[in-house]
């Protein structure tokens, strides 16, 4: 991993994942009236665990990585509180709360990354 990447740390990855989740939640809200659409969401606990999973040093191309490595975000279907007759499982209240929470957490990650940029700039500046 690049030194700069490491400087931005988990929050840098978090921004990307939150943006990805925002598109998934926007898809749910967009399909609120589509029959048979099943709401989906990214499973963040699984995503984060996998992101933090250790990557073994591979000195030979035939070395294998542990099975728990992150291959992509884990998508799960949402369990509806009360499924509707047309097979659509989007519940606007749930989706709106999740969307708002996701936007807030995106802003948090943005603030942390902004702070890291400020500290980098402070370190570079000669005064």
């Amino acid at each position, binding site marked *: 991993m690049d030194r700069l990447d490491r400087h931005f740390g988990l929050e840098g990855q978090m921004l990307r994942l939150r943006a990805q989740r925002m*598109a998934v939640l926007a898809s749910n*809200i*967009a399909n609120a009236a589509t029959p048979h*659409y099943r709401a*989906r969401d990214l499973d963040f606990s699984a995503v984060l665990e996998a992101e933090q999973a250790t990557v073994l040093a591979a000195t030979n191309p035939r070395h294998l990585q542990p099975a728990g490595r992150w291959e992509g975000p884990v998508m799960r279907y949402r369990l509806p509180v009360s499924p509707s007759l047309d097979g659509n499982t989007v519940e606007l209240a749930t989706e709106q709360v999740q969307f708002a929470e996701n936007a807030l957490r995106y802003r948090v990650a943005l603030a942390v990354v*902004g702070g890291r*940029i400020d500290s980098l700039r402070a370190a570079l500046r000669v005064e």
Partner: protein
Amino acid sequence: MSPLSVFDIAGRAMSAQLVRLNTTASNLANAGAVAPDPARAFRALKPVFATVYEGASGRATVAVLGVVKAAVEPGRRHEPGHPLADAAGYVHTAAVDVNAELVELVETARQYQNNIEVLETAKSLTLETLRLGR
């Protein structure tokens, strides 16, 4: 094809909801229309929504496959003096459930607003990201 952005997803959902709003408006406008025979009586229009998936990325937007006529038989009213009455003195009324259409109208407006909120949030987050480090 570039990946679907939040703007694409919400934008297409908004245009789908607008089609739905248009059909509801047509149905309400024609709720009082009468015809001389059942074949020519107005039948409520319904849009058919379908999800457009983007591979396994979890992103999906919505498209309107078409607008179909609802499978509801028009009613008839005995009104011999009406200029459009048939030989037996009946006029055939539009097959529109006004109450259901009004509910549909409110729901459409609400879901349209939700998509606008999604767009606004995505826009402000994008702008905040652009300002990062300034």
